[in-house]
């Protein structure tokens, strides 16, 4: 049964790659036939060669590493703050009255609009990028945690109290697992924002990372490296989404949608 399911899952995941691969093939053919000018978009093979060359010098790995590091430190800081605030405001109505209005106001400021301010504060150091990523991921995780905690079935909480759960055991056994699907939606959403923020931040002000690599390549008219950087972002975005899906599958085994 399990093997059969796995097979089915694998076949589906293969099918889902057909469209991107087909797009690559069309792109290659258009470049080969000269319909797509080299100055607009270099052929996939050229991008690939550029990637291999950068891989050999070690630059590529360094840049991916530094970008991923910024992304995840920012995500970690922003995620924890959003999660804690979401729990606090979801569990305590005093905290909700105190903080929710302010958070809703802050949420409506596009965090990327803060870039000039952030550059003035931090320059183009690491803090600037981490700050922006943290700010970007904070709100989706806050909102979804808050919503998840708020919408826990009151009947289940009542049943839990009848069965002797209260305080931390109520939170751990009932509120957190009930809010978890919603929290994970926030996490997946945030992972997207995480990369977008990092791309913008690195493109505007950085001296390392994938965004810097792209901007640097633009100066030297290296179209292949520019495109490589863009594809790398797509790939990294997909990788983090796959990771989030795996976590979802593991943690939500009980949920009818995952059975």
């Amino acid at each position: 049964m399990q093997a059969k399911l796995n097979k089915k899952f694998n076949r589906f995941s293969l099918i889902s790659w057909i469209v991107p691969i087909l797009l690559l093939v069309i792109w290659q053919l258009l470049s080969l036939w000269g319909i797509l000018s080299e100055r607009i978009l270099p052929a996939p093979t050229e991008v690939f060669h550029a990637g291999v060359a950068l891989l050999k010098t070690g630059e590529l790995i360094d840049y991916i590493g530094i970008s991923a590091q910024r992304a995840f430190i920012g995500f970690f800081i922003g995620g924890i703050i959003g999660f804690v605030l979401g729990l606090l405001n979801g569990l305590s109505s005093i905290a909700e009255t105190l903080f929710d209005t302010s958070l809703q106001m802050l949420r409506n400021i596009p965090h990327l609009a803060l870039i000039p301010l952030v550059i003035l504060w931090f320059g183009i150091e690491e803090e600037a990028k981490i700050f922006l990523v943290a700010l970007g991921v904070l709100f989706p995780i806050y909102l979804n945690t808050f919503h998840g905690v708020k919408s826990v079935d009151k009947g289940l909480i009542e049943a839990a109290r009848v069965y002797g759960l209260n305080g931390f055991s109520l939170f751990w056994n009932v509120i957190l697992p009930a809010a978890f699907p919603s929290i994970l939606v926030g996490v997946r959403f945030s992972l997207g924002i995480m990369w977008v923020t990092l791309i913008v931040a690195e493109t505007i002000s950085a001296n390392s990372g994938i965004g810097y690599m792209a901007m640097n390549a633009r100066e030297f008219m290296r179209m292949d490296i520019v495109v490589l950087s863009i594809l790398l972002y797509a790939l990294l975005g997909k990788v983090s989404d796959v990771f989030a899906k795996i976590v979802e599958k593991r943690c939500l085994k009980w949920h009818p949608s995952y059975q």
Partner: protein
Amino acid sequence: MKSGNSLELQGVKKDFGEFEVLKGMDLAFKKGEFIAIVGKSGCGKSTLLRLVAGLDKPTGGKILVNGKSLNGLNKSSRTMFQDGRLFPWKKILQNIGVGLKGDWKPKAMELLEQVGLADRANDWPSVLSGGQKQRIALARALVNEPDILLLDEPLGALDALTRIGMQRLIEELWRKRNFTALLVTHDVEEAVLLADRVILIEEGKVVMNKEINLPRPRQKDNLQYSSLAAQILNRVMQEGQMEKQAIHA
């Protein structure tokens, strides 16, 4: 065991704002007694159960549990809800063991066996049928060995055949384990089938308090049974015309 009152209500009142749901109730339940509370929907029978469970506070009067005034949750009682209220993120065995400490697994397994679902210990609740979920809910309520079991229309959502099986199971476990049972139901036949005493509530008042002295297990084709059930059903349907002439057998 079956001596003394395990539960007493003295002039218990409950209102929600302007609306009086319970208008002063005096009731006493003996240890080990099986009581059925019937009445039309909105008569206050579920409210009564919530007060006894300690989920709501009465606005007047007193509830005595084993002679002591109830304050907060009633720890000697467990409630089985109409919708089961199993925790979907806990496997069946973990659901039964909720809130238990120490070496609870053998006890939980024993109950799981008694409700006939020992082979489902490691399943998620979402794969069970409605009737199976209610059996798990019953096992969960009983694993704590409560003095009082509160049943809030536990069979209301089940189909007729599953209902019969559950009624038998509840009666069997009640005889084995000797707890006081308070069953809220809108099904008069179910009340007569299971209860030592049937209490009818109408507009927040007790209008009938009738002992059922039929031998157990009761048969639905028994003449006495059907005439009693019909008699009570008639009384329920009278719409409070004879409010003052409560029937006492």
